[in-house]
């Protein structure tokens, strides 16, 4: 159920005034704090600000979260490293996916709790996983020393449903059953990402990939192959969320937050969500469009989460770019989602080829495109204009957040 009409969506008081990104690579061997400082200083400078202007900080997922290399430095470490004096601070892993940190910052700015918020997401999963690949769980001869599990993981771990890859594979299989999705259609998400990554100097995988390469790749968990799963990497992405009052002071177009999509109306778990083909993306998408007069037809580029290819096609439908169950035919052949297509998608290569910057790479690229700074990969719409409206989505399954960004103030 919708919370009802809003007089003025307060997120529109917020703009992304600056963006920054550290070096990105498969295994950089640098500390997460080092990468974060690099990205943060770049974003602060891009916004035309000094360190002393920053009075808020926010990150995802915050302290002590997840597997090695996943969490990035907690916000107090970054505050201290940069010598920040703050009016507002936040960090956490629960909420509308990774971009919850941007959402929180926008609302803090709108409420007057802070004026310029540094928001970052840092991963060092490439280095943490080392050269031997992803470490397994347990292993032979574990005997009685294997720990027991509680909470939500107890419902899947005993059955070897260990990874989000397994859960998302089941969403994909259900889509094949209900909608006739094919592996060749799914492969277009991977191929599109690879084509765009070739024009992104920071991308992880840039060598050309054919449909034959895709179909011949090692199966991870049916129907997903290696190229349906994103590439762990090292890198930090930062954005500065500021009050819209600053928009006229910038030497580049401000990127305004037009609407946030935050709903989670179904049951918050992978196996109990009512619709196995959509999950929370359905609710987040619907709630975003409830907060804006813009429509899917206004969107010039979409940066949709591709931690796994299936999630991207779920988002295409959840955000109304095609009808329910129609994403397969929509992406067939790849023309619709190419840079010169009706919906230029994941134009920096996404996470499948660009690297798993965990949602924030997509936010960064949306800003790049809206500012017209994409260089070789810049989207140019019919009539020669640069994109004015971008949709960004993070997450999948029972965790989803989305936002609509515009060039300049609306």
């Amino acid at each position, binding site marked *: 159920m919708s919370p009802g009409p809003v007089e003025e969506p307060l997120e529109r008081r917020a703009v992304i005034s600056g963006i920054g990104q550290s070096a990105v690579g498969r295994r950089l061997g640098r500390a997460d704090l080092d990468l974060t400082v690099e990205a943060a200083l770049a974003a602060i400078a891009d916004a035309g600000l000094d360190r002393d202007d920053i009075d808020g900080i926010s990150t995802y997922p915050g302290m002590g979260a997840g597997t090695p290399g996943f969490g990035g430095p907690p916000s107090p470490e970054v505050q201290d490293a940069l010598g920040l004096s703050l009016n507002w601070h936040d960090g956490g892993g629960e909420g509308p996916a990774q971009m919850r940190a941007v959402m929180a910052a926008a609302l803090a700015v709108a409420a007057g709790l802070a004026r310029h918020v540094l928001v970052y997401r840092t991963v060092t999963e490439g280095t943490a996983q080392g050269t031997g690949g992803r470490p397994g769980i*347990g292993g032979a001869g574990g005997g009685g020393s294997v720990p027991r599990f509680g909470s939500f993981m107890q419902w899947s771990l005993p059955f*070897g449903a260990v990874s989000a890859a397994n859960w998302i594979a089941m969403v994909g*299989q259900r889509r094949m*059953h209900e909608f006739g999705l094919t592996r060749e259609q799914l492969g277009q998400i991977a191929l599109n990402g690879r084509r765009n990554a070739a024009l992104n100097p920071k991308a992880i995988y840039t060598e050309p990939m054919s449909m034959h390469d895709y179909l011949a790749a090692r199966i991870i968990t049916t129907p997903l192959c290696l190229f349906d799963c994103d590439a762990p990497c090292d890198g930090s992405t930062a954005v500065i969320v500021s009050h819209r009052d600053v928009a006229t002071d910038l030497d580049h177009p401000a990127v305004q937050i037009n609407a946030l999509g935050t709903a989670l109306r179904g049951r918050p778990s992978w196996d*109990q969500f*009512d619709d196995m083909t959509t999950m929370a993306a359905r609710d987040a998408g619907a709630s975003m469009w409830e907060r804006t007069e813009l429509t899917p037809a206004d969107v010039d580029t979409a940066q949709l989460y591709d931690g796994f290819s299936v999630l991207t096609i779920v988002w295409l439908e959840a955000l109304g770019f095609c009808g329910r169950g129609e994403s397969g035919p929509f992406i067939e052949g790849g023309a619709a989602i190419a840079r010169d297509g009706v919906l230029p998608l994941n134009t920096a290569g996404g996470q499948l080829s660009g690297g798993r910057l965990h949602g924030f790479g997509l936010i960064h690229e949306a800003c790049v495109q809206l500012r017209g700074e994409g260089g070789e990969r810049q989207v140019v719409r019919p009539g020669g204009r640069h994109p004015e409206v971008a949709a960004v989505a993070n997450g999948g399954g029972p965790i989803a957040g989305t936002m609509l960004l515009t060039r300049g103030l609306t």
Partner: protein
Amino acid sequence: MVANGPMLRLLPRLSDDVAFYWTSGEDGVLRLLHCNACGFFIHPPGPVCPRCLSSDVAPKEVSGRGHVETFTVNHQQWIPGSDAYIIAWVSIDEQPDVRLTTNLVDIEPDDVRIGMPVRVVFEQADDVWLPLFTPEGAS
């Protein structure tokens, strides 16, 4: 032939709220938490019925029959040493919006169909009886 599951079963803690579920198979019967006030099956178990908010809830036997809602054949060595195995979401016939993440056993991947009827079989691991599912009619 695929395996029944990973080579190592990562097991749940038998805390008070879920111990009944994970040990139910000791007598070959699947049980789910049930609301005595409105008849709703509550899974995963919780302190009150999320439909009517009654706290009059208790485990109740179910038939152990269900249907395959979707599945995947896992090949990745998340748990080193594992052969391929089938993971599925199975809906429970008494209340199909309850789904169990499980393994399908005694069936080859090519024979699995979404919508096929299945019934529970239990695999004991230490003090836990894991509910797995096999095609209806299999011996």
